Every structure is written in C-alpha cells, then in structure tokens.
C-alpha cells in the first residue's frame, strides 16, 4: 500500500514503544502513535493521560486528552494532583511523548511563544504538563514534523528541557535530582533521530523516499548522521489498516 509521510511518522513512533510499559500520552499525533503501539508492538502498554487516567482503553480515538472514552473501562481515574504527583513525579512513567513548535539540536522544546515572551509574535498554548513530563518521565520521545521553522538553532523559549546545552545535560539532571534522563528519540516525517554521547540529535534512520538533502533542507543546523544510517521499514499493511480504519478514519492527523 502507498502511504503518506504523516502515516510513516506515526508508525515509526509507535514502533519505538516496543518493550515499554507505562506511557504518558499527549494530544494529537502522540495519541495516534501510542494507541497504534498498544494494538501492535506493545500490547501491555499502560496508557496514561494527564487528565487523570491510568490504564486507558479508549474505544475510539480520543478527540482530546480529556475525552470520555479514556475514562470508560480504564484501570484507574484519579485527580490531576495524584496523576502528576504520584504517577509522574513519583517516577512511574517510562515514556513521555511530547511535541512542540520548536526544537533545538539538544532536544530542548518550545511550546510557549514565538518572539519575545512579553510581546509575542505568536502566542502558543504553553507548557500544560510538558515541562514536568520532560523533567520527570524516565525518558521522552518527541514526534514533530520537520521544517526550518521548527528545527531551529535557538528556540525562542525553553518550555521543556531536553539535553540542555548538550554534554552538561546528563550531569545537571543528575545533580538536581531529576528522575528523567531526557529525550531519547525524535521521530519526524523524514526520519528517526537518537541522541549521541554529546546529547545531540543524530539521524539514525531515513524514511523511505526521504533523502539526506531533504532532511538538511528541513532544519536550521547541519545534523549529525549515523555512520550506520538505515532506511526505516515502510508501514505494513496491518499498521496502515489500523491507522486508517480504527485510529484516524477521517484522516485528521494522517493526510
């Protein structure tokens, strides 16, 4: 079957969840990717929603992170105080899924403003739970479409810390007692990046049809490229069928 770049991105993100146990789900693309993972590579995955749900079993793709379908049939519904305090800050979340308007090479994220904070060119939604997920989830997966506007040299506002200035990231996290080790993978519509020992994004896999040139044209810095760069396996018929028929039948996120 042929597939769109968005479908490839969602499928690649879902596959990264293989072997993971407890995942904090974000709205939009992460929502589809995590629900796909639960149906494919990670059937035991516990879906956690910041609205206060642990062990969700949504019967339809949630329209928002507070959809009633994440409640009915869930293992537990808690107050947000318990969800953020006991589950997230208490260290029970293995993977937090984040997106943002801007990312830098060290995986620091901006979802607050474009421009100056006090007089912004564009006011974005803000942190929500993102800053505490970035600090307290054991690791963070990022899913975002690539462009020169979003993959930038300097983010305008640091909403969610990644590997900070690079090499110092791990040390600062340890010294300040954070539970999270930071971003471990970034999945885009062009490829999959992991982080090297300097805390910098490194292209490890190119999606079918994508080229190094296309990747370079869609980011503001020259990316490191793995010496063992591979090609992402295309979505299987099963994966595509689940995305199209069960998860996003109206094609809101996958067109």
């Amino acid at each position: 079957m042929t597939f769109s770049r968005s479908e490839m991105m969602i499928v690649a993100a879902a596959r990264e969840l293989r072997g993971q146990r407890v995942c904090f789900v974000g709205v939009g693309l992460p929502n589809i990717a995590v629900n796909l993972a639960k149906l494919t590579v990670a059937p035991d995955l516990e879906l956690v929603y910041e609205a206060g749900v642990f062990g969700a079993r949504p019967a339809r793709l949630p329209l928002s992170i507070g959809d009633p379908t994440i409640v009915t049939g869930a293992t537990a519904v808690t107050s947000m105080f318990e969800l953020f305090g006991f589950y997230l800050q208490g260290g029970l979340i293995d993977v937090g899924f984040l997106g943002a308007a801007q990312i830098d090479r060290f995986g620091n994220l901006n979802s607050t403003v474009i421009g100056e904070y006090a007089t912004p060119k564009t006011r974005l939604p803000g942190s929500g739970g993102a800053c505490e997920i970035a600090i307290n989830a054991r690791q963070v997966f990022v899913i975002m479409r690539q462009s020169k506007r979003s993959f930038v040299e300097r983010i305008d506002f640091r909403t969610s810390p990644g590997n900070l200035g690079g090499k110092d990231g791990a040390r600062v996290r340890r010294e300040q007692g954070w539970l999270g080790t930071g971003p471990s993978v970034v999945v885009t519509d062009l490829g999959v990046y992991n982080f090297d020992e300097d805390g910098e994004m490194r292209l490890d896999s190119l999606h079918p049809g994508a080229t190094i040139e296309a990747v370079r044209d869609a980011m503001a810095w020259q990316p490191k490229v793995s010496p063992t760069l591979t090609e992402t396996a295309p979505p299987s018929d099963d994966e595509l069928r689940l995305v199209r028929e069960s998860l996003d039948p109206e094609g809101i996120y996958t067109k």
Partner: protein
Amino acid sequence: MHDAIAALVRDGDTVAIEGFTHLICFSAGHEIIRQGRRDLTLARLTPDLIYDQMIGAGVARKLVFSWMGNPGVGSLHAIRRVCEGDAPTLELEEYSHFGMVARYTAGAMNLPFFPIRSYFETDLPRANPLIRTIASPYGDGEVYAVPPLKPDVTIVHAQRADANGNTQVWGLLGCQKEAAFAADRVIVVVEELVSEDVIRADPNRTIIPGLIVDAVVVEPFGAHPSYAQGHYDRDNRFYLEWEAISREPATLDAWLDEWVHGVPDRAAYLEKLGAERRAALRPSASAPSGSVDYGEYR
C-alpha cells in the same frame, strides 16, 4: 443561575470555573457575561472556549493558566488577539498544569506555597517571577515553589448534588476539589438534584461537601459544549466551528449576541440548540459502574 452569579460574583474577583475538558460550566460563564462583570481575574488550567468567550466579551483583565488552546482542535483566537503583538492588553500569569494544581492545593490546605519538581532549566520562572526555588530544609537539594491560589469564587459543574450542596462527580476529576476547597465562595451547578439518601448511599463519590458550598444551581446540559460523563458527549462540532467564529472580532461578537446576550438563560439556549442536537450527544450505550457493598454497622 442568575441569582447565584448576581450574589456571589463581583467585579474584580478572581474566578475559577474549573473542570479539565470535562464538566466545564459554560452556563455560568455565559451568565457572568450577561451580567456584565468587569476586571475579573480568570483562573483555569485550560482556558478552553469558555474563557475565550468571556475574554472576548470583555469581562477579564487577567488570565492565570497553564495551557491555552482549543483542545484537539487549534487556537483560542479571542485570547490571542489580546496577548499577542506589541501592546498586549490581557495580563498573563502562567504556570504548568502541575503548578496550577499545586497552587489550588496550597490554597485549600492553608499553606504558604507548594513544592514541586517542575520548572528546572526552563524559561518559565523568568516569565513568571512567582515561580521560585526553595532549598529543602533537610539538605537534599532545591525544588520549585508555587504560591497558593485562593479564588474569590470557584464554580464547579457536577453530575449530581443534594440540596445542601453535597456534590458527587465521576469521570475525570480534574482539580475541582482543590479549587473548591481553596475558594472563598463556591457555586455548584448540577445535571441532577438528588436526595440526601442518594449521596449517603455512595459517600466515596462525594468530592465537595455542602459545608463549603454557597449555592446549588440545577442546570442540565450546563456544561455544553463540553461534556458530562454518562450524560452527554463533547459537542466536537462546536469546538471545530469555534476556530472560525473566534478568528474575527465581528463573528465573535455576532455569536455572543446570538447565543449569550440573545438568550435569557440556559433553558432558552438549550431550546435554541434543539432536541436533535442534544440527543445526538448522548452516550452510544450505558456503562454502569459495578456497585459495592458498604455494609451496615450498628
């Protein structure tokens, strides 16, 4: 609703209409607009469409929040119009979700601050100087502190309460309990008024005791276009339509004229919405909880 808002919400108040996606009391927000309140400080984790409508209608001078967007859809354009560009007119006080929940918790517990492990190495403390570090008195590092948030009025929508205001909620609980205990005055708006026996038969489900409630308003569908678990679903069509409505001041004003100023109360709003639209929002099937046996002990 008219009487509760008239008696309990005053110009200049800090008002929290809480409810995370679920149980957002639009009917109270609309009544506040109709009564022309001014200079309010509006607090909510997610301003959602309700505060976009209220700020678009000019009731507020300040917004305290953690995530401003149209959940699952896009932007809140009325709010963005007054906080973007060279001369923003809406004052913002911004936290993260856990920061806001912790603020209500500190307010409810009569604490001077609440410590949390958020904000490290972010620009948020620079954007909001009320977010500060504090050293552990036990010598094991620094955490961040947020100040208590004590609304003058908290408004909570719920599935049911008795006439004394003992209030039960199921589904997403958000931080309504914390916001209510933190507030000076509390208005509870319910889908259904029940007898005290119904409340006492399931005391674990009570999140707010009548002790702290100043007014109970019975207003079915008062949370539309948000939802009430077990009663009606989110009217997602409206959330999608809001994107175009709020994008221009003229279309926003026309909408407010038609759906807020143009109707005297919630009953008229619901009639205008139509029985068919409401029926389409009912759950596709019933999913009752299993019951538990509390036992009798004499």
